[in-house]
């Protein structure tokens, strides 16, 4: 057994780990070393595939043993050599001295057991107390989580609680057995910003109060800046940089860390090009600049002129049926979009900001005709959208959030990109393929990759394909429904750059829907903030986002973790 110094909670030394499946070996960790002292809050930052979650799961040996191999290295937790512990000993450790919080609050709790049962299970397993004491302890823990009505939550099933509430329960469970260490794996990624702020504060507060060490795994540098004393930066299974958070962020040493920081839209000049990780790594050479191959298409993008707004929503309202009568008629409605008024001029970007369920996606769907308006009007080029002919309506195109679901997995890229062109016409295969190559070049993809299937592309590349498809019909207005929220920060920077380039070149107008205030700040000219189906505040981006008037906008702005604010606080 390796014994660490008494003040060390975790010591990982030169750990390598590979996944083995059907003869394929994938190296997930390539010799990492991490130390966490008692009561310390340490962050591990990295993008997807960096090995950060594997690191956390391996501390409790939660990875399937048959499918992982550890060629070398050691993991010592509170003096236990976890790599050589039996399953029985590990069960003592798990949830007792070390506990864990996961990303997905919606699925991390057992749906058929009450919160009560799940908490008592853990407490009675690890602590020598009577059930009634455990009951009282659970309620106290829930109260500590600033839950208004602990008794109700305690007796609820998970599905009766909101995401934020479930995550509070998870944290309460994690603290229930007085652990020395909590592993938090992206604990707030799935939550809305305002909820995220509360949860992070709670986590920090409880950890401080109980002297528990926390290992926080996240992709968000700002979250780390807000919470952690020290940070490790991971890239492709290695730790490329470590040190006190403040030093790492203000004076990054490694090229990757610098790239990651530069890729963040936060604090950069609006509409400026963001540096991308790949570009920085290839020493400043822009690897994915928009090619000039597609340039002769430019003239096809006609200008409309600035006199009237390109697009306007007047009291737009969307309702969904909520309840049906005996005869199947809807008798009660849910108002998703409530009398929304926005205006968008040509060549500009209007961002709609709001948290999940605020109605922003319903609004986008109504513009492209996927859901009908209950009342109000959508005007395009000064005329009711519904009165335009098909060809004009096609000047409005959409790019969806999820690049997995937005491309038909069975279609090659050239068919996907040119599908809109086949409507009502039947161009030859060669014409379509040529156009697809051109579009590929336009969005920064290899023009020779048009025979590939979507699964051969990464998330960012798929999003480019989706943008290419939208561009194929020479749109005037693009609806971008959270186009970067499923992507890593560095890829997000690439896509934002691409969007800005395209706007510049083709004088496109964007209706940009997002929950991410930093991104919106970077790309938008105008902003409308939506809350519960209503636009609570709108205006110039700069005005709204830096000097908000409405209380909700202020809450939203305060909740967004930023590097800047983290340092002011620290």
């Amino acid at each position, binding site marked *: 057994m390796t014994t660490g110094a008494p003040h060390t909670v975790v010591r990982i030394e030169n750990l390598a780990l590979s996944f083995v499946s059907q003869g394929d070996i994938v190296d997930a960790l390539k010799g990492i070393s991490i130390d966490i002292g008692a009561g310390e809050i340490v962050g591990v930052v990295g993008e997807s595939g960096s090995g950060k979650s594997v690191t956390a799961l391996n501390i409790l040996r939660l990875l399937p043993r048959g499918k992982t191999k550890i060629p070398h290295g050691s993991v010592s937790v509170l003096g236990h050599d976890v790599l050589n512990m039996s399953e029985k000993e590990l069960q003592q450790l798990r949830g007792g001295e070390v506990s864990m919080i996961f990303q997905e609050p919606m699925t991390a709790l057992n749906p058929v057991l009450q919160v009560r049962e799940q908490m008592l299970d853990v407490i009675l397993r690890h602590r020598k107390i009577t059930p009634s004491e455990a009951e009282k302890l659970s309620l106290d823990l829930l109260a500590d989580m600033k839950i208004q009505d602990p008794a109700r939550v305690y007796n609820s099933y998970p599905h009766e609680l909101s995401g934020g509430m479930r995550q509070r329960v998870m944290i309460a469970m994690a603290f229930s057995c007085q652990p020395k260490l909590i592993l938090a794996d992206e604990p707030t990624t799935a939550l809305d910003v305002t909820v995220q702020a509360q949860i992070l504060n709670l986590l920090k507060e409880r950890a401080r109060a109980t002297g528990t060490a926390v290992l926080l795994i996240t992709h968000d540098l700002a979250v780390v800046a807000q919470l952690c004393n020290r940070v490790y930066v991971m890239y492709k299974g290695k730790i490329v940089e470590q040190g006190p958070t403040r030093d790492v962020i203000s004076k990054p040493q490694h090229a990757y860390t610098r790239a990651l920081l530069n890729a963040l839209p936060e604090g950069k000049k609006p509409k400026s090009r963001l540096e991308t990780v*790949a570009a920085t790594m290839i020493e400043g050479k822009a690897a994915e600049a928009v090619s000039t191959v597609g340039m002769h298409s430019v003239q096809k993008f006609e200008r409309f002129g600035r006199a009237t707004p390109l697009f306007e929503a007047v009291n737009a309202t969307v309702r969904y049926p909520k309840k049906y009568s005996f005869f199947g008629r809807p008798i009660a409605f849910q108002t998703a979009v409530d009398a929304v008024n926005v205006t968008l001029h040509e060549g500009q970007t209007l961002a709609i900001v709001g948290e999940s369920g605020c109605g922003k996606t319903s609004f986008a769907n109504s513009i*492209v005709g996927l859901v009908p308006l209950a009342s109000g009007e959508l005007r395009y080029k000064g005329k009711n959208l519904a009165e335009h002919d098909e060809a004009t309506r*096609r000047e409005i195109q959409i790019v969806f959030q999820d690049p997995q679901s*937005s491309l*038909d997995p069975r279609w090659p890229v050239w068919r996907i990109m040119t599908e809109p062109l*086949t*409507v009502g016409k039947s161009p030859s295969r060669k014409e379509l393929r040529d156009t697809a190559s051109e579009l590929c070049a336009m969005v920064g993809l290899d023009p020779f*990759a048009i025979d590939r299937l979507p699964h*051969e592309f990464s998330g960012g590349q798929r999003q480019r394909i*989706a943008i290419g498809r939208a561009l194929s019909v020479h749109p005037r207005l693009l609806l971008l429904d959270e186009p970067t929220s499923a992507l890593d920060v560095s890829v997000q920077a690439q896509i934002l750059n691409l969007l800005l380039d395209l706007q510049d070149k083709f004088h496109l107008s964007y209706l940009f829907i997002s929950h991410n205030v930093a991104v919106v700040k970077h790309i938008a000219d105008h902003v409308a903030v939506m809350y519960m189906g209503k636009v609570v505040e709108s205006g110039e981006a700069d005005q709204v986002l830096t000097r908000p008037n409405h209380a909700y906008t202020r809450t939203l702005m305060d909740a967004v973790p930023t590097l800047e604010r983290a340092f002011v606080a620290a």
Partner: protein
Amino acid sequence: MAEAQAPKGAAILQEAKDALVNPNNPVERLRRSRLKDITSLELIVAFTLFTALVILAVFGQWLQTHDPMQGDLMARFAPPGEKGYILGSDHLGRDLWSRAVAGLQWSMACALTANTINLFIGSTLGLIAAEKEGWARTIVRQFTDTLQSFPFLVAAIIVVVIVGHGFLPLVLTLGFLAWVVFMRVVYAEASSIFQRDYVKAARIAGVSRLSIMFQHVLPGVRASLFVVFAFHFAGLLIAESALSFLGIGAPLGVPTWGNMLAESRQYLLKAPWMLMVPAGAIVLAVITTNLVGDGIAGLSRKRGRSIDV
């Protein structure tokens, strides 16, 4: 962390290039091709057995050693292997091997035809119901629910008796009663595909409903249709032989597995092989088609993983 910079620079550069623009490398493409996935032992066994059954069914006439209808009263109840009867003879001295092959032909033809009818009815209704909300969906779903909430065998027994004996009535009965599973699967899968963003994108681009149906949705449910077709084939084999066994499917005297089983009941003590031959034939055929279904399911799961995830 200086060591990470200098020597790894080239590798990182290469990785970055790869990530940005994948070269259209033919070796890489071959490695990812579907060929690799098809080599599963289970599937090889399944298709070997299946091919054997198909060959028996198609070339049965030439593989039979005797006339399946013609008995030799001097050679009744011959045990397997005796007097030139590979699998023995029955109470009328007819060759069980030849009768089993004839039964195979009957069963395969019956199940195949019925299954095809099922496939067409079920997937058409499933697509109609999935495509759009409205009266068509309501009617189709109500109709399917009604049919499903009544035991299939009871319905089949009644209808077959009323429609009459013989190949065609039997096939039509099974064909028009047993399509529910196809409707369910197509409805579920098509509904989920209709929710995907790429279908929304096509709709926004103005692609017609029919075109979306045939270019996005149908290819999307195709893999599941193969799987259901295989498993359902086994179910129809069982249903057909059950009806024949009850004496209401195939006409009496026609060599089918069900009839053979029914005939064997009086001679369980005297000639157990009369039971074992048709029973073995049914079990073998059903297991083979189940294996094929399982294999296809595994294959499409594997491919689905590389495509959809």
